[in-house]
């Protein structure tokens, strides 16, 4: 159904007139121009399209836009504030925790959701939390190390 939908996007209010059963991924990428969120599988199997809705990591490729009405949406573009990278982003750079970079926004956002819930996760908890985020380049060990480091430095400051 075509209607007005309001939500906050990266801390700014947004109002859209859209078919509310469209998937959030396409609205983000092609209506709002936020291309940091990626298409990978279209079926919530790979995590490339992960965004944060009200502090939960969700797969935007299977999330109808009506489900975010009135909620707070955060994408990779909203992680750095006032030009300062988020500690997870810093740690990904320090560890070179990416190769082609395509899965990276989804990984960082997924990790962000974990640290919201648990400021100091263990290695095992990180692995469990990221297990449905796929990376084909094989950057897994570095991603885990980067998140561990970020968790050490954030002190709950996400």
């Amino acid at each position, binding site marked *: 159904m075509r209607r007005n939908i309001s939500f906050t996007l990266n801390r700014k209010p947004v109002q859209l007139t859209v078919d509310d059963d*469209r*998937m959030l991924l*396409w609205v983000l*990428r*092609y*209506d709002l*121009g*936020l*291309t*940091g*969120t*990626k*298409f*990978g*599988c*279209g*079926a919530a*199997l*790979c995590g*490339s399209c992960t965004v944060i809705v009200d502090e939960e990591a969700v797969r935007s490729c299977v999330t109808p836009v009506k489900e975010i009405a009135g909620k707070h949406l955060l*994408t*990779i*573009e909203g*992680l*750095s504030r006032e030009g300062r*990278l988020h500690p997870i*982003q810093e740690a*990904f*750079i320090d560890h*070179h925790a*990416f*190769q*082609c*970079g*395509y*899965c*990276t*926004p989804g990984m*960082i956002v997924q990790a962000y959701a974990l640290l919201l819930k648990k400021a100091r996760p263990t290695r095992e908890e*990180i*692995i*469990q939390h*990221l*297990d*449905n*985020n*796929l*990376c*084909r*380049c*094989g*950057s*897994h*060990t*570095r*991603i*885990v190390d980067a998140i561990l480091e970020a968790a050490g430095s954030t002190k709950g400051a996400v």
Partner: protein
Amino acid sequence: MHSDDWNETSEIAVDMATGVSRREFLQLAGTGLFVFFATGPMAAFQEPSRLPAPPSYPTDFNAYLRIGGDGRVTCFVGKVELGQGSKTALAQLAADELDVSFDSVDMVMGDTDLCPWDMGTFGSLTIRRFGPVLRGAAAEARAVLLQMSADYLQLPSVENLHVKDGVVTCTKDEHKSVSYAKLVEGKRIERHLEKVPVKPVPAFTVIGTAPRRKDALDMVTGKARYAADMTPPGTLHARLLRPPAHGATLKEADTTAAEKIPGVRVIRDGEMIAVIHERPDTAERALELIRARFEPAQPGEDDKTIFDHLLKAAPPLQIVDEKGSLAEGEKLAARVVEETYLNSYVAHAPMETHSAVAIIEGRRLTVWASTQTPFPLRQQLAQAIGFAPENVRVIAPYVGGGFGGKSSSGQALEAARLAKVTGKPVQVVWDRAEEFFYDTFRPAAVVKIRAGVNAAGKLLLWDYRVYCAGDRGSRQFYDIPHQRTQSSGGWGAGNPGLHPFAVGPWRAPGVNTNTFARESHIDTLASKLGSDPLEFRLSHLSDPRMRRVLLAAAKQFGWKPASAPSGRGVGLACATDVGTYVATAAEVAVNKSTGHVEVKRVVCAQDQGLTVNPDGSRQQMESGITMGLGYALAEEVRFKDGAVLDRNFDSYQIPRFSWLPRIETIVIENPETPASGCGEPPITSLGAVVANAIFDATGARLRQLPMTAERIKTALQRG
């Protein structure tokens, strides 16, 4: 240094066939110091059409660097950054030879308008072949700039000049100083690569370090733009009607319902039926409304019958290598072991599916494409839409993984054809099912090995036949007096009817299959003789580089001699690829009731000659080990009668975080040997090392990749 490369590149003449002279090119390219260079014999990178592209290049070089009046160094290379870090490593090479800061070097890559012709990014060639020539060009530039400095500073010679961060200073008089920027400002100076000595290893300042990757900030902020992120104003999104199986033919398609959706257009162009809309999801919805009838494909092979088919249909064997006499070996052998090894089709499955955006402005086509081969693609695009190649520009922006699969770029041809028909920019992004359907899989393959030892346990017979994987990695490096290696059918196209769908290069084409077979068989022999697998290998290895990596890996692993199966679950494998030596040791735990394998630890030692960026090398090793677990344990394309049954990551499992072993990497210091390849070699031993460790754990020998839980259970029951 490859001396033959230097000789070939020093003989440079302007090729007038293009109609563009060096002078004309320089007019277009602006001011600064230019050094032109080529990688290897001209024939190897001559553009097939010999047609120029504006701004046109003479065809006697395929890369160049420019030092501008702003002091920045720009290197123009047709290679593509696929995530392997080459943008960073190449900049390191140039910065070091020029004595400029790493940050002052910009890499312009993968753009057919800005970069000279390049055949493509594959085969771990970027650093191996291109690196030495780039270093030479940078050294040449430095030599020219030193001479200019001496003239400028009115010094009799360059003898007492020192360079740091692009500033030349006289060591006898520090007031005499001039920057590269000042020297070239407003001038147009041209040099071609001559024989110039490059820096000796101890003088390196940037090579051997691990600076922050040039693309790091883009990667972590979502600013990195891939082909699907390019949306020129008015872009339309296309979804194409696909057959249910390879070989199925379209009989009729009713598009009425699709066309009723506002804004949807259905395009029929030859055999292609596409729906386009300004939103991709609406195009997708419209596509689902097309009622199409296909005539099914002829019944054909499936993933179980394929191996018999390959053996029957494979072209005749060709001899790859031969030593001694097999007949003599047979005579001397006290014990002969013969086995067959199989591997299934494997997908590339990059996280970014094939994507492209095409826009036609006037008579010019521009395509952003996820591709490993922008220049060959330009040629195909020109042909597909009837444009002259010089009116086609291909840009490979950030590419979300390739692994060989983006050497083929059909999506770009589709986008260009649709842009031509509609007159609008068109984006084609394959969905995951299309990615699996049109992938150029790593071919299914069969290897047959007959090997013999004498009474003293010495290997003296090796009869090796590989079908359909290709001969790369098939040559024997263990010392065996009587041996023959034969290969039938390569890994690529060119064998019509052999495979039920397209096959192509997959990270180290052929080597994964050949290494799995060879190293499994070597282990089998060691086990039958009751020998320790490390000792058995060492007793047949005289190549010092292979011995060194094997000993390094074994030492780090804490290898303790025992014959397999020892119950410990440990294994070894050696491999060589693109001039690089790799040895891997692994530890696994096998659940004997479920067949599930946990790879607990992998130690990998690699000798790649000169290491440009040690962190980059380790990253490629970790990458190869992690990705390699997929084809070792799970990855296999299921298919039947031309239909690809795996269409997404639910049934096609690639490695996940929970699969992660503890990974330890050892980069052997060997800086005086030219850099060899790094992107491919570390993956090649994973099938074998895991197979050998599973055997050591259980006594079950897996001779088919992938070693799924099901196959392991079957092997355990077989005993």
